[in-house]
């Protein structure tokens, strides 16, 4: 079976790579899965654009509903008898039983309180334990879950594989050994979501899946890891590539693609800019930039489109305007400032959405940051 993991930067055509594989073999029963619904929709849209239709044999499903349908439900009997009604998305460790007098949490035990360990009271399974449950079902039934899966799908494609963590990774090892093709693409810089947090495989959190596979994968069915094939960004221009790559100096920098089709529409407005808050409206009007913010609590200009940084993953715009967090500003001023992994990833995602220009809202005075222009300064001096 042909297994492949491709690590590449933003805009390098990872999703496109998957879609081309589907197009090569549209009759192969294929699952394309990814963590977010938004990205799933994007894949559907791109596939439709590329092929003109969605092949009957291709299923696009988000990671959790895939696990629920093909991992949890077929063999949940014997492990948990009550009907699992759905999934409950949790942000913190689930299955809290009580707290001690000192306030320490006590959790339900997997072996003796299985049902409460995995399920909320309404019968929904906790999102942080789905893949763990799938592995347990598979083990309990002597590998039946994975066997069934390999009979339903001949190929499993995982987009944004860097979002997977914990038991998800162990599950991937199982999938790699099963008789089907596994194609995974991801970018360790873009871990804006994690499916969940858990102690298991903690060292490989934040997109270190390539290392995980290198270290844990047994020889039986190899998985080719390719970090070169998609080294060029078809989206970002040279300035944006350089700026985004400076977030991850230890990784190979992304280069802009120089082919004719990629560089055919050179915009007038290009580069990285700082924009003072009072100039934002003016800037937006002038360049039709899309606003990117941390979350809904950030005040933005109404009347111009806006996305949360995390949710913008996979999207492409000509011009973006980012409302940075305090830490992001610190990094901007001092590139040796250590950003938290999640913050860094979101900033990276935000920057790499743009094809031509990235603006960052910042109340600058007279400081000058290398490679960054201060918007409005020249005009102000003129008037």
């Amino acid at each position, binding site marked *: 079976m042909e297994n492949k993991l491709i690590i590449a930067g933003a805009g390098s055509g990872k999703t496109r790579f998957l879609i081309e594989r589907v197009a090569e073999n549209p009759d192969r029963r294929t699952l394309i899965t990814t963590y977010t619904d938004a990205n799933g929709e994007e894949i559907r849209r791109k596939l439709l654009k590329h092929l003109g239709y969605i092949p009957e044999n291709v299923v696009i499903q988000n990671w959790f509903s895939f696990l629920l*349908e093909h991992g949890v439900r*077929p063999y949940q*009997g014997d492990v948990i008898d009550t009907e699992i009604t759905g999934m409950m998305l949790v942000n913190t460790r689930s299955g809290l039983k009580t707290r001690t007098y000192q306030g320490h949490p006590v959790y339900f035990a997997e072996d003796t309180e299985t049902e409460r360990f995995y399920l909320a009271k309404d019968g929904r399974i906790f999102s942080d334990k789905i893949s763990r449950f799938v592995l347990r079902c598979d083990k309990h039934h002597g590998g039946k879950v994975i066997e069934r899966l390999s009979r339903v799908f001949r190929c499993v494609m995982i987009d944004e594989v860097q979002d997977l963590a914990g038991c998800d990774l162990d599950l991937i090892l199982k999938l790699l050994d099963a008789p089907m093709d596994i194609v995974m693409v991801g970018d360790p810089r873009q871990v804006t979501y994690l499916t969940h947090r858990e102690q298991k495989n903690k060292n490989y959190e934040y997109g270190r899946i390539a290392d995980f596979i290198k270290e844990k994968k047994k020889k039986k069915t190899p998985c080719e890891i390719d970090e070169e094939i998609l080294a060029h960004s078809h989206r970002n221009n040279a300035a944006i590539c350089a700026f985004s790559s400076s977030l991850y100096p230890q990784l190979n920098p992304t280069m802009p693609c120089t082919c004719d089709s990629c560089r055919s529409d050179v915009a007038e407005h290009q580069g990285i800019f700082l924009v003072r808050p009072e100039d934002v409206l003016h800037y937006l009007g002038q360049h039709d930039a899309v606003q990117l913010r941390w979350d809904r609590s950030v005040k933005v200009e109404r009347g111009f489109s806006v996305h949360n940084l995390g949710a913008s993953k996979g999207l492409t715009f000509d011009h973006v305007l980012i409302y940075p967090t305090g830490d992001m500003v610190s990094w901007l001023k001092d590139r040796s400032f250590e950003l938290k992994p999640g913050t860094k990833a979101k900033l990276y995602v935000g920057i790499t959405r743009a094809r031509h220009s990235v603006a960052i809202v910042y109340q600058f005075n007279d400081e000058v940051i290398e490679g960054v222009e201060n918007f409005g300064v020249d005009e102000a001096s003129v008037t």
Partner: protein
Amino acid sequence: MRIEKVVIENFKCFHGRFQIDLNDGLNVIVGQNESGKSTIIEAIHLCLTGLFNGRYLRNELSQYLFNKKTETDYLSAVKEGNSPEPPHILIELYLKGEDTPELANLIGNLNSDGESASGLRYMVHFNDDYKGEYEKLLESGTLRSIPIEFYRDSLKSFARRERTIRSLPLRSALVDATKVRTQSGSDVYVSRIIRDNLEDDDRVQISQAHRKMREGFMEEPAVKAISEKIGDDAKISDQNISISVDLSTQNAWETSLMTYLGDTPFHFIGRGEQSIIKTKLALSHKRAKEANVVLLEEPESHLSHSKLTQLLKSIQDDIGTKQIVVSTHNSFVANKLGLEGLILLSNQQTAKLDHLTPDSRDFFMKLAGYDTLRLVLCESAILVEGDSDELVVQRAYMDGHSGKLPLQNGIDVISVGTSFLRFLEIAEEIGTRVAVVTDSDGDVAAVKKKYQSYLGENAKDHIRICFDEEVDDGPLNEGENKFNYNTLEPKLLKVNDLNSLNGILGGAQASNDELLVSMRANKTEVALKIFEADTSITYPQYILDAIEHCGGE
């Protein structure tokens, strides 16, 4: 894809769990009335189409779907103050076939076996949303029937996923000649079968053509004029009022098109012809992707013998890779379709005839007139050679059982000609209690050789071979041959006397020899007279042995 096994719980005549294993190709289900033949067919169709009696069951759930005993058990448990689980109806189809993704997709362990299998599970069950109401109802003590208003149905794969009928990889077509079913003039079944027969391209084309036709209708000046007239007259609203054809539903063509045979609308042709056409349509199903189950309910109804032969032939010729389930009461149907596909149903148990030798299978298929089903369906049987033996054995039985016919006690006396061994093979397979009444024709060794599988060390408890081991002889000749003293009539004379037989037969034969010759010449007439006589005669021991073996008290 095929159905390997059907499990039914509490549906109609099945109390508790019932299971039937199906053959890949033909399945001929036979059984007494009320044994559940039709229920099996209805259950399969319900699971695959959601239809029951031609209507969507979802909207018409009723407590009458439940097994009567299931309901009484439940109600008496409620009465005793226990709180039993409200009963459910379950229909499970276990599937097998080529290892395709469609088949694998249905694999899981949500089934009553708790094993990993591919299949579908239809249930009519209590809806937990009504727990509160149900408990109140229990407290009030007014529960008199299954509280069907709190029930719902569901269709899931064994992988615990809710499925819609449309998404199923398996379809069924039901041809039920015993009932009339029409819906708005057109026969739902025919239109369904035709609809299923169409490829997606065909559907698109037909629905577009239909749309064009309706649009054309509305463009007609006459229709336009009428619309304007209505618009002027009716000032009931600010909006314009006009008439139009319903363009809203996607598949309107399915309901507004009618099937014709020649110039006659389908539902106006004879019932028998209808079922032939329906069956042929169902069998000619062309959609490559979908395996099909064709369900035939009593195909013999409304059909003449020659039409029936025609129908059975087309079933055999066109079965292809389809799975067919037929219910029948008719030996001819069973023989013709092949006894290896026979499934006998009684008391919620099934038995098969799949170990029959190919030779016997062939024999009954070619000579389909034999009453094989009588043997299969009776409690026990006495096999005799011909009409005269049949009559005498019947009368002998009546004499020993205060005038009751053997059939009244579940014993069938069947004339099998010379095919004793063929019938015994069937009896052996399904374990029916059988006695053979045969002549020795003077060669006991030959008889013993013929029945060696059932005599001596090979004797079977439920099969007994009865004949007179004593070889009789006499001076009579028939032409050049010696008279056969070892058939029924001479044996009768042996245990009776000339006078009493003369009395019963109303004759005046002067000697035993004359009587023998005359009885020989009028076998059936003699037997009839014995059967109808006011006084009884004495019967040879081997006949009494046969009767005793079959019991029938």
